[in-house]
């Protein structure tokens, strides 16, 4: 059933976007965009470039602006902490970024507060995504292990490396889909 869902979501999003990268995103059926449930006072991002901060990738209006993106600072890793205002169920996540500097290995942790780069590898992630250029450019949401994200109060996204291995990781948009 999960596989059928994935293909259904895949075709739904791929169909209206033949070649143009800026095609509208189809929200997976039965899911909502969880951006309205994000508790903005608690959103944190470690190792972000101050002039290219997390709001550029998360906030409703800024994330669709092609000129704004989230960039990493000292090295290519990023640690994003997103608390929600209520308990949600996560279905899929969409990452949009440039082909070269976009994220590659993404680890998601559910309900782990205040992690740091030093202890991020101490816990097993709730899910690991290996993003390809497809995901980043074609507006294709990556489906998550639904059973692991049934009771999510906060989400920590650890971006371990990027597509080309460069020093800076850039992300144009992060969208989370699910239900409440």
């Amino acid at each position, binding site marked *: 059933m999960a596989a059928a869902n994935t293909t259904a979501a895949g075709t739904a999003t791929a169909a209206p976007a033949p070649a143009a990268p800026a095609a509208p995103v189809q929200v997976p059926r039965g899911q909502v965009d969880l951006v309205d449930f994000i508790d903005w006072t608690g959103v944190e991002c*470690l*190792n972000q470039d*101050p002039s290219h901060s997390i709001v550029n990738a998360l906030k409703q209006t800024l994330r669709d602006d092609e000129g704004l993106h989230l960039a990493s*600072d*000292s*090295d290519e890793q990023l640690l994003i902490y997103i608390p929600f205002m209520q308990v949600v169920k996560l279905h899929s996540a969409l990452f949009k970024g440039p082909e070269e500097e976009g994220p590659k290995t993404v680890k998601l942790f559910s309900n782990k*507060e*205040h992690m*740091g780069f*030093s202890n991020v590898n101490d816990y097993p992630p709730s899910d690991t995504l290996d993003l390809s250029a497809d995901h980043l450019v074609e507006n294709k949401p990556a489906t998550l292990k639904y059973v692991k994200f049934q009771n999510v109060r906060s989400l920590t996204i650890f971006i371990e490396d990027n597509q080309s291995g460069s020093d800076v990781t850039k992300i144009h948009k992060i969208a989370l889909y699910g239900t409440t």
Partner: protein
Amino acid sequence: MVLEVRRATCRRFSLPNSDLRLISSPRRGFPLQATMICIDNSEWMRNGDYAPSRFQAQADAVNLICGAKTQSNPENTVGVMTMAGKGVRVLVTPTSDLGKILACMHGLEVGAEANLAAAIQVAQLALKHRQNKRQQQRIIAFIGSPVKYDKKVLETIGKKLKKNNVALDIVDFGESDDEKPEKLEALIAAVNSNDSSHIVHVPPGDNALSDVLLSTPIFTGEEGGSGFAASAAAAAATGASGFEFGVDPNVDPELALALRLSMEEERARQEAIAKKAAEDTENKDHASSSNNDSVMAEAEPATNAADDDKKEQPKDDDDLLQQALAMSMEGGSSGSASVADAAMAEAGAVDPDLALALQMSVQDANMSSDSDMSKVFEDRSFVTSILNSLPGVDPNDPSVKDLLASLHGQGEVRSFLFLS
């Protein structure tokens, strides 16, 4: 203590509680911060080119910084650790208790070499395990000995700090060789994000280390908070308050006005108390009793004289207190009788029972012994007003009653019970 007065002021002037957050939020000085101070107590600190010795100058500066940070925001925490001596060790984990911080500086020994890299790592760890995760992390390092690491290593350290969102302030003093300022500047450049990290070079000279630091961003914080932090720091150094009540009227006119009004009302009330020595029941009913508590507690000569922004107030209260004391000890029975008479005349109009009690107390006072101290205790109104002002002392507590009984004798306890 400042927070108490502010809360009482809020209640008094009907400000909603959400405004309390505004009032106590650090719009000036330091935002919510957890700081670890790394002290250099290596052999190089024995040198006397900073008066009285490098180590002592450093200790004074540390005391000043701790004071400024905790005053600027009561939720700020500061921790202290050594870089040399017995080794890199944390003396006190980040706490807002200024006394603890000052106590740990006592008896520190000077010796060995400073290990900067290990110290910064340990400081990072201490900050990582802070209790309030909302606090920004900051390390202040006093580097007085030569730096033996090369630039690359320092830059890596700096990057790691930046990655973990830790700001770094460096005080470069003591030993100076050609490369030290450069290396430290490189370190700060690597850590710096958005101007959060600073470096200060202090050459040896006449000015004390702490005085030089007062005008630097290390002291004044990042939010242009020169008003409060600088005046608090200046007050600590020179003993004179920059602004009345320590609040800049330009920055926060409502708070300044509210504080001034409650101060004036306090003064008026203190004078009334001094005149009517037996009016302790009214004190309890007074709406700003908690305000009174904090103000009176300060007036006690024994309390901490380092509370800068109320410095003017204790002096005035002391004067009033002296007057009250003088009046109660004045002459033999005539003094106390006249006070009691004045009190009786007013209180008698209000409450005949009270008048009776006062009469009994005056009689007992006349029969007392000669010593001054017992006369003070005999002036019951004075004692009860003191007791009421002490936070946590309930005059109806049986142990307190027993104590008074032992001081006055039985007859007076009865009248005291009556009064309370």
